[in-house]
């Protein structure tokens, strides 16, 4: 299998008025083509920072973050990013949002092809009826579907998702997870998902990276024993429950460690 992305002894820290803050410490792992990696850990531990380095928004202090063998220099269309806050452009209609990436010089396609791509993702994401609506008329789940469609439209080799369903209610969230599985099946993408939900990580991912309290180090990397395509029935399987209790315990340990770190110094996070 080809290595898509590599974290190679990556650390990130920065100066604060109170001293040096280590956010990520000596993290190494590979993401292979076709992997679905879920990164899970207590909130504020630095897991988003990991994703942010691969996306190209932050640079490691030491070590290397590689994509296709080359150090990441900045954001780029081969690494699509789905943000928790959706980030759909409110001044563009749903269809114009999906077409946005295709109108850029980095991945320009002919108008006819652009239309076909838009229609494909409008249909796939169940947004066809809203093609000419503005995002203000969409629900949270629909906005996130739009953000996913827009990211997919430029054909990224890799999808980075930062707690994409964190702001959605439980039912919408589970619908979105199923939709994502369906889309991955047809579109086939390598994914790095940041989440704080153990169920979400097991249900979606092929491998789970459990991260420690800040500074983020790798606590354990766990292979998820379920084959794709998956459906909700796997959540009833005993292995699912066992894995869930095991990972929950790991995450809870780290959560407590994080709480202990924060007390009594400050309530800043």
């Amino acid at each position, binding site marked *: 299998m080809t290595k898509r992305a590599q974290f190679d002894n990556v650390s990130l820290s920065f100066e604060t008025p109170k001293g040096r803050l280590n956010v990520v410490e000596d993290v190494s792992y590979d993401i292979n083509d076709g992997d679905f990696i879920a990164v899970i850990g207590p909130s504020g531990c630095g897991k988003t920072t990991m994703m942010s380095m691969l*996306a*190209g*928004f932050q640079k490691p202090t030491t070590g290397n973050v590689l994509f296709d063998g080359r150090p990441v220099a*900045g*954001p*780029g*269309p081969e*690494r*699509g*990013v789905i*943000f928790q*806050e959706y*980030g759909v*452009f*409110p*001044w*563009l209609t749903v269809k114009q949002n999906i077409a*946005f*990436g295709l*109108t*850029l*010089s*980095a*991945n320009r396609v002919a108008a006819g092809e652009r239309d076909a791509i838009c229609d494909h993702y409008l249909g796939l994401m169940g947004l066809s009826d809203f093609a000419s609506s*503005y*995002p*203000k008329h969409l629900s949270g789940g629909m906005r996130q579907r739009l953000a996913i469609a*827009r*990211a997919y439209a*430029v054909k990224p080799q890799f999808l980075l998702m930062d707690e994409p369903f964190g702001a959605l209610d439980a039912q919408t969230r589970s619908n979105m997870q199923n939709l994502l599985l369906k889309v991955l099946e047809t579109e086939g993408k390598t994914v790095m998902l940041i989440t704080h939900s153990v169920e979400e990580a097991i249900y979606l991912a092929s491998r789970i990276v459990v991260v420690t309290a800040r500074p983020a180090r790798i606590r354990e990397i766990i292979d998820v024993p379920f084959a794709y395509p998956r459906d909700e029935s796997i959540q009833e399987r005993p292995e699912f429950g066992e894995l869930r209790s095991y990972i929950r315990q790991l995450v809870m340990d780290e959560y407590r460690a994080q709480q202990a770190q924060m007390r009594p110094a400050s309530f800043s996070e």
Partner: protein
Amino acid sequence: MDGAGVRRFGLGSIPWIGAILLWYAVRWSGFVNLSLIPAPHQVAAKFFELLTKEGLLIDIFASTRRVFFGVALGILVAVPVGFLLGWYRPARTFADPMINFFRALPPIALIPLVIVYFGVDEVAKLVILVYASFFSGVIVMYEGVSQITPLYIRVAQTLGANQAEIFRKVIIPLTVPHILTALRVALGVAWATLVASELIAAQRGLGAMIQNASTYFLLDVIYVGIICIGLIALIMDMILRKITARLLVWQDRAIA
């Protein structure tokens, strides 16, 4: 007009009717010398007299043109300057105190200096209006631009946008609402400054008309002038709001 339209029109006209009734009531109350308050119908008669015999339209045109060019030029400069200040923090640290210093100066206090440096003709009046529009517009622009969230820029970057594309396709659309707000604020301020600017030996214009009328104690003419200024400012604001609504259909507004 549909039912809702009639209702809105009705609601909108109640305060005007109320104001006119109050105006009459003050006259009839007997507390004020009648010669100090011309009645609404007298003012209306004066309005038609000025309109037909004294060339009121020329005054209206002269003033509206001054305000229009004053605001246009002021905002033309305020948009890029406000944008730079809002976008680049160092620029703000650099220029903010100075902008606030000049913004605090009432334009009327600058008139003697403007007369010395720019004379008494059209340019001098324009300078005052441009000054007033610029400083009111620039604040609105930079407050607005400095609140643009970096999220949309990040999204555009991850889709492959280069610097020029980010500017053209993300930053400009996000700036348009602030330009329109700056225009509205500047229009209001410019009309408020108009009378001051026409203190500079203006021959024609609503401010000049009011100035001249005050010399001869023609209260009804003063009333006509004031009402004209208010009405034109109101009409211009309504036009601008229509344009805003058209350009910003995408905005999520609390009030439709």
